[in-house]
């Protein structure tokens, strides 16, 4: 009786091992079913989801114009103090003073990618970009000014 149990235990152990080995062997011979991505090597073909929240950017068009009015809605919506809007006063052709953004300072190291600034923006001036490779050697490089130098607000945005 003891011998019978011993043999059946060994048989069950070996059969369960083989069951697992058959599974791994299947994936070894079917490499197309393996979903592992060889990340740094597949950089050229890597496609991130378009909504992926990697960093905040400010899109500029070909005339180097953006849609930011400097209303500081994003600064108020941010829970971490990531965004700081520095405003200036432009003189319009009619001679009036108009508020405009001087620098939209974005501190990536404080950002938690919560997207609250993007949905708070009334003129869709900022959006999330799917870049995720943010490693730099110096922390000060993570503080960015989102509006490009010499850029101005697009016509017709109040």
């Amino acid at each position, binding site marked *: 009786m003891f011998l019978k149990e011993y043999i059946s235990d060994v048989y*069950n*152990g070996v059969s*369960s091992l083989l*069951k*697992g080995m058959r*599974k*791994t062997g299947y994936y070894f011979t079917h490499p197309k079913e393996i*979903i592992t991505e060889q990340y740094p090597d597949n950089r050229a073909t890597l496609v991130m*989801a378009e*909504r*992926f*929240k990697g960093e905040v950017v400010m899109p500029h068009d070909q005339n180097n114009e953006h849609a930011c009015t400097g209303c500081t809605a994003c600064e108020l*919506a941010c*829970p971490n103090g990531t965004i700081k809007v520095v405003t200036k006063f432009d003189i319009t052709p009619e001679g009036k003073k108009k508020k405009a953004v001087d620098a939209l300072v974005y501190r990536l190291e404080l950002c*938690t*990618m*919560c*997207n*609250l600034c993007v*949905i708070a923006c009334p003129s869709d001036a900022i959006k*999330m970009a799917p870049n995720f490779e943010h490693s730099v050697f110096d922390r000060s490089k993570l503080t960015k000014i989102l509006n490009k130098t010499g850029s101005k607000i697009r016509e017709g945005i109040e």
Partner: protein
Amino acid sequence: MYNQTEVIKDTSELGAEGELIINMGPQHPATHGVLHLVVTLNGETIKKIEPHLGYIHRSIEKMCESLTYRQFIYVTSRMDYLSSHINNLGCALLVEKGMQIEVPERAKYVRVILSELTRIASHELWLGAMAMDLGAFTPFFYAFREREMITDIMEETCGARLTMNYIVPGGLMYDIHPDFQKKVKAFITQFKAKVTEYEDLVTNNIIFQSRTKGVGVLTAEDAISFGCTGPVARASGVSCDIRKLYPYDVYDKVEFDEVIETAGDSFARYMVRVKEMNQSIRIIEQLIDTIPEGDFVGKTKNVLKLPKGEFYTRVETARGEFGIYVVSEGGTTPHRIKFRSPGFSNLSALNHMAAGSKIGDLMATMGTLDLVIPDIDR
């Protein structure tokens, strides 16, 4: 004035004759995080377990007092990071309840589908990690394969894989991705085909069964007295599913069973979670084809102000009851906020469950509690 010679902890009584004190963690590979367990052993038998907390305390409750009702939702993703979507949902429900905000049907449906997907993803990760605790390495990769499909869906629709922050008071942050329904259906097909692999690899495995059956038994009375919720309490036969008892969003419209086991041991807790995944699939199947058209976010005021008073909402996360208690003074920020996290109460039962058993069984008991340390420490 701080007394320099004050005895912070008297350890003389712990080191009694024949006893051995082992510090498990804070970085033990089997503890899933920075949890420090002071285990008092007599030979190989556990006499006492004392969890030490606070290694990743971030004072989230205090932090929330300075954030507005739109801003404080994202912080709760950082508590129970495996069911962050459900935490966000609980916070949004509280604000909606307090301010009587109307939520569109479409948003409710999507919220429930995403909650159930989060629950499956959380249980998948738990299954892989739990099997790895017990020495089986392969199920980890099989569980993560299906979980990867869910994180891809989350990435496409919510924009992040773990800390989604997709819910705002009144609905959703933006509409679902056009491919959402197609991808979820593809996931359901894949999950149903591959779930038998777990049965072969883990459930029917004789080593796994003998390591979990009869280990870490928690009776129904003890589960209630320790305040356990979620799969831990349901494995002991306590009916405590918030989705059934206090339905929120569209849980009252869907048919699903509350999974209850009566054995109360580690294997029962394992079975509850595996069966719960199938129930989640059942809920998603009922909703995915009938997502109504319409707005994804209701009309809300620009500045949210809860009326003066006290508010409490609860949701069923993958680990149990997650409660949010807010005292409002009528301003834009909460006056006081308290989170009732399921992990903390479940951890409190660990000493009772593991005392008297062997140290090798502690891994199975702790693994089936499904502890997420940021949820306990906050």
